[in-house]
């Protein structure tokens, strides 16, 4: 499966409609989302005091938001005291400039990166590459999509859309690899463990040659100035252990007030993300290596990124989206995501939480369709360990979209008036909602959508209304 076009949130509707027709993609998504939901379900079933732990994790995240400015100042002060250089970035461009500056400062030629959505969000790689730096994604899935020059398709499993044959072909083409036994036909022979080992070898060299390691942050602890990184592969440990310089980039909401709050989050995050009691590796990093230590970065940086988030704190409903710790569970539970996958959303963040974050962080004109690509079934809300009420936020966003675009009312009115079937179908469910028909027309794509709907589903007939039938029946009975 090769992705050729570029995806944008602006084309969300077209992209999702198209994704539905890709049978291979649907099969892969079905398999992957069931796999994750299954593992998670088993883990949560066995999780003693689950709801209490969920509530504590939520409280830890809420506490962070409730004291966000103070905690960020404390984080800055304590991380600095521990020897980390702290930087603030108002937007993506500033963040890129800060990291590029650090890279220039240490004369970096090779950069290794741990999986991080926030570096995707700020489009860091092209900025570093423009400076002539080799940038390597080191998470296996990210490495594969990097070689393929594609965006990641899932928070937890960035390359679920690639088969082993796809990966083998990539390794042969892009890395010149011929397999462990030196065979030419890597595509036919390669097993998944073999491909993994090939990637391990290729990336080992990069880790050892790297001048700079860049990672995201799962939790930053204000109390101690530490950053906590959670992973399974060991690539993040490698990125913070081998290169002399480490830059951690955090979106500003990822702070926790105390080590206790961080521990409450760690109890829940791995279980919700992958069904593990703990991820293979959790690193708590505080400042650079101390004198006498033989490894670990000698120089550590922390970049605190805003990129639109601080504005959200003033909205009591929408700021719930900032609680998210990116476990990915709501994606896997979402019937729409299960059907269209991550790429269709056209931005770094996909699925229910991605719809919310993209709508909040990207320009409004590009994200109008996003909050409508949702049936409001509530599977996400039910799944989220932090109790985020995605449907409620989705409705709030719809309200924002509609408030921003008056007009067109009469066009729809005309359309519906001229198409009794449309009127029955659409308005049969809502005929008295909106006597002036202000609403429907603002929603794009209705005429063609209606055609497809009727194509696949027999619409009910318009019948003699219930009220009249009941009146008649009662009259008859009364008369009898």
């Amino acid at each position: 499966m090769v992705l050729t076009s570029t995806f944008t949130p602006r084309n969300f509707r077209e992209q999702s409609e198209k994704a539905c027709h890709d049978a291979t993609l649907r099969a892969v998504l079905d398999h992957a989302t069931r796999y994750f939901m299954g593992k998670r379900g088993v883990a949560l079933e066995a999780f003693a005091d689950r709801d209490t732990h969920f509530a504590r994790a939520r409280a830890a995240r809420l506490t962070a938001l409730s004291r966000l400015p103070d905690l960020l100042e404390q984080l800055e002060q304590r991380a600095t005291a521990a020897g980390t250089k702290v930087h603030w970035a108002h937007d993506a461009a500033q963040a890129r400039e800060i990291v590029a500056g650090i890279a220039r400062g240490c004369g970096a030629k090779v950069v290794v990166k741990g999986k991080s959505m926030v570096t995707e969000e700020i489009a860091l790689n092209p900025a570093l590459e423009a400076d002539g730096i080799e940038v390597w994604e080191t998470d296996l899935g990210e490495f594969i999509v990097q070689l393929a020059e594609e965006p990641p398709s899932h928070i937890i499993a960035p390359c679920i859309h690639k088969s082993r044959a796809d990966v083998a072909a990539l390794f042969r083409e892009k890395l010149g690899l011929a397999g462990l036994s030196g065979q030419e036909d890597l595509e036919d022979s390669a097993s998944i463990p073999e491909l993994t080992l090939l990637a391990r070898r290729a990336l080992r060299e990069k880790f050892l040659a790297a001048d700079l390691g860049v990672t995201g942050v799962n939790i930053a602890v204000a109390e101690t100035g530490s950053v906590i990184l959670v992973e399974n592969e060991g690539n993040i440990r490698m990125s913070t252990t081998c290169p002399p310089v480490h830059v951690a980039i955090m979106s500003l909401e990822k702070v926790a007030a105390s080590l206790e709050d961080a521990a409450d989050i760690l109890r829940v995050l791995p279980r919700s993300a992958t069904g593990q009691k703990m991820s293979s590796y959790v690193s708590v990093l505080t400042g650079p290596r101390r004198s006498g230590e033989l490894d670990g970065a000698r120089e550590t940086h922390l970049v605190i990124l805003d990129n639109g988030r601080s504005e959200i704190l003033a909205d009591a409903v929408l700021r719930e989206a900032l609680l998210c710790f990116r476990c990915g569970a709501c994606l896997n539970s979402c019937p729409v995501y299960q059907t269209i996958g991550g790429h269709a959303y056209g931005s770094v963040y996909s699925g229910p939480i991605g719809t919310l974050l993209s709508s909040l962080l990207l320009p409004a004109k590009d994200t109008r369709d996003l909050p409508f690509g949702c049936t409001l079934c509530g599977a996400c809300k039910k799944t989220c360990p932090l109790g985020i009420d995605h449907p409620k936020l989705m409705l709030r966003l719809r309200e924002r979209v509609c408030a921003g675009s008056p007009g067109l009312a009469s066009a729809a009115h005309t359309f519906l008036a001229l198409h009794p079937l449309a009127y029955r179908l659409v308005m049969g469910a809502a005929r008295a909602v909106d006597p002036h028909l202000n609403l429907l027309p603002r929603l794009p794509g209705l005429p063609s959508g209606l055609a497809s709907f009727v194509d696949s589903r027999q619409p009910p007939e318009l019948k003699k209304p219930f009220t009249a039938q009941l009146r008649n029946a009662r009259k008859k009975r009364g008369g009898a």
Partner: protein
Amino acid sequence: MMSVDARQRILDTLRAGLATAPLTVPAPPARPASLPVGPDAWALLAEVLAPLDVRVRLAKTPAEAANHVADIARERGAQSYARWEHMPPALDMDDALAGLSRVLPDCCQTLAHVDIGLTFAQAALIDSGSLVLVAGRERPRAVSLLPPTHVCLVPRSALAPDVSALPELLRAHADASPSLPAGKLPSCLNLVTGPSSTADIELVLVRGVHGPGALDIVGLDWDI
């Protein structure tokens, strides 16, 4: 300075936001009490780790521990090892691994070619099967990361119930610092739970993608 402006701007916006829509956090339910560490702790640890293909071997004496480590080296076909200097004196691991060449863990480059990395856990969390490794002067981080096999010695005194023990563990290893009330935490603490793993290709689980593919634990079941 662009980023100084950024700092002020961000903090101002956040403060204005909280002033517009104050946020109070309802008190959460109390953290459930941790299970006590009882006589079955080793068995529980082994049970949690079994699905991760981690074997826990118990030793009653230093000599037994040495035998276990030697067995592991043989089973893994190891020729070389590196270890933390930080080990209780009673444990003569160099003697146990006398047939192998010992490599000093002075940098990642050398460790990349070593077969076994040997460490000594500061704690082990029974609930999740996590080893707690605190990095330091005689405890380089890469010993548990670069070699394909990681062997970890876990003293009985290190057994702890769950991740709620983490804050205390970190504070216990902190250095006093005038500007840091909780002290200056160690530069790195790792929770290690099973081998390095990935399922990125077709969701097929593979052990040992970047870190060790094998993790062996030797429990030191006496008072150290």
